[in-house]
Structures are given as structure tokens and as C-alpha cells.
């Protein structure tokens, strides 16, 4: 389909991602910043699977991001010091919660869907915040660290070697993003576009719309909880802010900023977001108002997001 990224774009983006740790310093960044771009980019792209390619706005994706983060953190801290197991448990927790909640809300549309996703998100936030004895409450889950990756033949030090950890994240990112890309190009993916474009027509072609929205929601949440697990690993820490509503809002901002009709747009949006946050917050406390201003300008003048502008210039 037309909106699937051109080969050139895809190649360029992979090239940038593959080399990022080697030139980050030269442009005033650091490897952890690059890792943040990947992790939040994955979260925004996962959200966009639902938002941009199914046409359903969730304002509560931080819940699944946070469940992933808590799942990974608590597994490594309490159950077994294994990074892959932490990721597995985190993703399973987030996905399972999405299956249940998705089934409850797949009938809702538009602003009602968005409101209910916020509400469920806040439920998880308050559980994490209040249930001190288990979640550590406001202080979060501390006192654990991501573990080396044991591949049998070799051990990869993810903790001390931040480049190695970056490439570990990139590998997870690549798997997730490739799966999403393949899904969107499949007959199933096209039924999601159909729902976005015209729900009534989709239904009267024989697509069980609610079931497909549910599937899309679960897939989206599965990948966002993967991003959540990586986020906890990156910080060696997680706290209730990972699943608060403003985190959900940030994902939406990233997706819209970068361009929610394009596959890579949310990654670009996340990069802008992370870099602005890093740069502006070192100068002023009010970094969010800069993001806000930038967001409003983009939405007003370039409703298709940053990638939408580049795309039009490059291809028209």
C-alpha cells in the first residue's frame, strides 16, 4: 500500500539506528540518550499501530508500558536475576491485562474509548502507588540491576557496557518493529486500515470490527509492554510515573508529532521529544512547555507530523 515507507526511508533509518552510538558523542549526546530514543520510539510506534493504523485513540498505553516495567523489575528483583525472564514476564503481564481490558472496551468508540483507557490506566497507577509492600509505592522498585545476557557460549555485559545494551535494545526493537511492519502489510493489517478508513464499510464487508479492534489493541499493548520492560532495564528502576496518564499522553504526542499516518513517524517524534527533553530540561524546569509549543505548532501547520512534511517534500 502507498503509505508503507519507501525503501530509501527504511534504509536510512536503519543506518542511523545501527550507527547511533558511534556518533552520539560527536553531536553532544550520549549512548543512554540513544537508548531512550529507541525505547520510547518503540512505545510510540506500538501505540501508533492502534492509533495511526486502526484509527483508535488510546490515552492509557502507559498502563501496559508500566506493567511491562514492573513485571521486568519485580521478576529480576524477587524471582530470578535474568534479563530475558524479566522481559518475558513483563510482556506477558502487559499483554494479559490488555486482553482483559481490551475485551471490556472494544465496543467503545472515539472519545469514550480514550476516556476509559485513561481510567483503566489510572487504576494501575494507583495500585502501583498505594500498594507499598509489593510495588515500593512512590519510591518504585529499586535495588536491582539488569543482568548480563547469558548466551551459553558467551556472556554479554549489558550493565557495564552501554553500547552492548544499546544493541540489545536495538535487537528487541528490530524484532518488534519488523513484526508490526509485516502485520500491517498483511491481509489482517489491511482490515485494520479498513476499520480506520470506514468502520461501516469494513463491517459490511464482513469484518467483525470489535474483534479486530481487540486484536489490534492487544498487539499494540504487547509491544508497548516490551518497550516498558526495556525502559525499566535502561533505568535499573521503575516507579509509578511509568504508568501514569501523562506518560500515555507523551506517547500520543510523540506519535502525532512525528506523523501518525507514517510507520516511522512516531520514532521521529520520540527522537524529537527525547532530545528536546534532554536539552531543554538542562536549561529550564519548564521543558514541557517547549514540547507543548512545538507540538501545537506542528499540529497547526503540519497535521501529518514531521515525517509527513519531509515525505511530501521528498516525494511530490
Amino acid at each position, binding site marked *: 500500500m502507498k503509505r508503507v515507507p519507501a525503501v530509501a526511508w527504511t534504509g536510512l533509518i536503519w543506518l542511523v539506528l545501527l550507527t547511533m552510538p558511534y556518533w552520539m558523542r560527536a553531536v553532544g549526546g550520549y549512548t543512554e540518550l540513544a537508548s531512550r530514543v529507541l525505547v520510547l520510539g518503540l512505545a510510540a510506534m506500538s501505540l501508533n499501530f492502534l492509533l495511526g493504523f486502526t484509527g483508535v485513540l488510546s490515552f492509557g498505553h502507559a498502563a501496559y508500558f508500566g506493567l511491562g516495567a514492573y513485571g521486568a523489575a519485580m521478576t529480576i528483583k524477587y524471582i530470578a536475576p535474568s534479563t530475558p525472564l524479566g522481559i518475558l514476564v513483563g510482556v506477558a503481564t502487559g499483554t494479559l491485562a490488555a486482553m482483559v481490558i481490551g475485551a471490556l472496551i472494544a465496543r467503545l468508540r472515539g472519545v469514550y474509548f480514550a476516556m476509559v483507557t485513561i481510567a483503566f490506566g489510572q487504576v494501575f497507577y494507583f495500585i502501583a502507588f498505594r500498594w507499598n509492600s509489593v510495588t515500593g509505592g512512590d519510591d518504585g522498585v529499586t535495588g536491582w540491576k539488569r543482568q548480563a545476557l547469558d548466551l551459553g557460549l558467551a556472556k554479554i555485559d549489558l550493565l557495564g557496557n552501554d553500547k552492548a545494551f544499546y544493541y540489545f535494545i536495538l535487537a528487541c526493537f528490530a524484532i518488534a518493529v519488523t513484526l508490526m511492519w509485516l*502485520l500491517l502489510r498483511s491481509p489482517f493489517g*489491511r482490515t485494520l486500515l479498513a476499520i480506520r478508513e470506514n468502520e461501516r464499510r469494513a463491517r459490511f464487508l464482513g*469484518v467483525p470490527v470489535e474483534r479486530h479492534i481487540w486484536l489490534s489493541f492487544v498487539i499494540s499493548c504487547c509491544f508497548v509492554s516490551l518497550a516498558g520492560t526495556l525502559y525499566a532495564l535502561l533505568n535499573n528502576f521503575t516507579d509509578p510515573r511509568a504508568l501514569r496518564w501523562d506518560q500515555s499522553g507523551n506517547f500520543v504526542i510523540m506519535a502525532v508529532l512525528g506523523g501518525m499516518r507514517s510507520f516511522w513517524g512516531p520514532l521521529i517524534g520520540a527522537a524529537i521529544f527525547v532530545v528536546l527533553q534532554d536539552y531543554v530540561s538542562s536549561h529550564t524546569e519548564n521543558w514541557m512547555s517547549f514540547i507543548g509549543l512545538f507540538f501545537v505548532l506542528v499540529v497547526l501547520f503540519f497535521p501529518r507530523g514531521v515525517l509527513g512534511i519531509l515525505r511530501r517534500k521528498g516525494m511530490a
Partner: protein
Amino acid sequence: MSLLVVENATRRFGSLVAVDAVSMSVAPGELRAIIGPNGAGKTTFFNLISGFFPPTSGRILFSGTDVTRLSPERRVGMGMARTFQITEIFPELTARENLRIAVEVASGLRRSPWLRGHANAQIRERIEVLLDMGGLTPKADRLVGELPHGDQRTAEIMMALALKPRLLLLDEPTAGMGDQETHDITQLIRKLHKDQQLTIVLIEHDMRVVFHLADRITVLAEGAVLGEGTPNEIARDERVQAAYLGKAA
């Protein structure tokens, strides 16, 4: 046996009785036209048949099965396809993509996360046949929302046909079309009916089209059946003339 049987279907909206105890049965291979003044309840009747909403009372049977409470997508699965009075397509996708979605869903691939080369080849072929049948081949790669109105309506009909329906419901297929487009669509419908023995129910205001195509005509007025018969019988029916044809002429 009738392909479609409607028994005493009634639909109320508050105090308004939009469809009032309407019964109708359509034989396989028949082309039935439904006519009636604006607000007669024709579209509402279609909505009951296709499952857009359930009737307040009454029953709908499709090839012998009671479908009254079935979802629209289940009815589509059983072979019922429809178009809408106001075109319902995927405007920001190309004509070819619109048809691809319809063909893939019809091929039972809607949940498939991949597409094998062989299946894809068959799907492509089917898309091209449909594009050609609708005269859309030269415009296949343009966004369907940017095509002329007539082409959009044709695209919607082709999407319905992609489902290989046993019953095709068309709500004013020629609405808003120019003379040439009306002629083309009429020819297409006639061909589907004559060559493929497709069972069609269509709502239509254009009497030339109705009398050219229909095997039988059902006249609705104020939600109720005013008359039913062959085009000749309807043309002679005085009540119908008084209520509808007279005014239209």
C-alpha cells in the same frame, strides 16, 4: 424456495413507525426494485435486511435461516452484500486497495498475518477482473475519494461483488449520477442479473432504471407496502399512481 423472506418486519424510531409490518419474499435470480417517496422507509427496510439494526418486531429469513438477530458481518458471511445510499468506501485508499480489502476478506484471509505468493496471485487476478468489470482499471491507482462520484459508487458496487454475494442489496445505485454513468451502471446491473443470475434487490428513484431492470416491484409508502407486482401491474395500479408515480411524473 425464496432466497429472502421478510415477515411482518416493523421498525419504530420513538413514535415514528418507519417500517410498518412489511412482508416480502424474493426468489433466487430475481431482480426486485423497491420504490416509494422520500421517507417511505426504503433505506430503513434495507437496514433491517442487512442487519444494520434489528427490527422492533418481525422476522428475516435468508436462504431458509432466521437471521433476524445476526450481526451484519455474519449475514455478509452467509452471502448478503449491500451498498449504501451515501457511498461507503475507503476514500483515502486507492480503488485497487479498496477492492483488495474486499477480495481478501471474501477469501477468508481477514485474520491472516501473511499472504502466500499463490494466494496473492489469485487475489490480484480477481481484483483486476473486478476493476475491469466496473471500468475502473485506468483509475485503479488513484485515491478512490478523489474519483468522480459515479466511479465511487461503482467502486462500492464492485466491493460488494467482490464478496461473491448470493444476494446483492443496492440502495439507489444511480443517485447523483449523470446520464452516461446511470446508463453504465444500469447495464452493469443488468449484466449481473442476466449473465450471473445474481439475486438483486435495489432501491431506485429513477423510473427508467426501475422499469428497465426489475422483474418485480415493491412499492413502499409511509412504511407500509402499497403494492407489489410486475412492472406492468405496478404501472397500471391506480393507488400506486396516485401515491407515487403520479407525483413523480
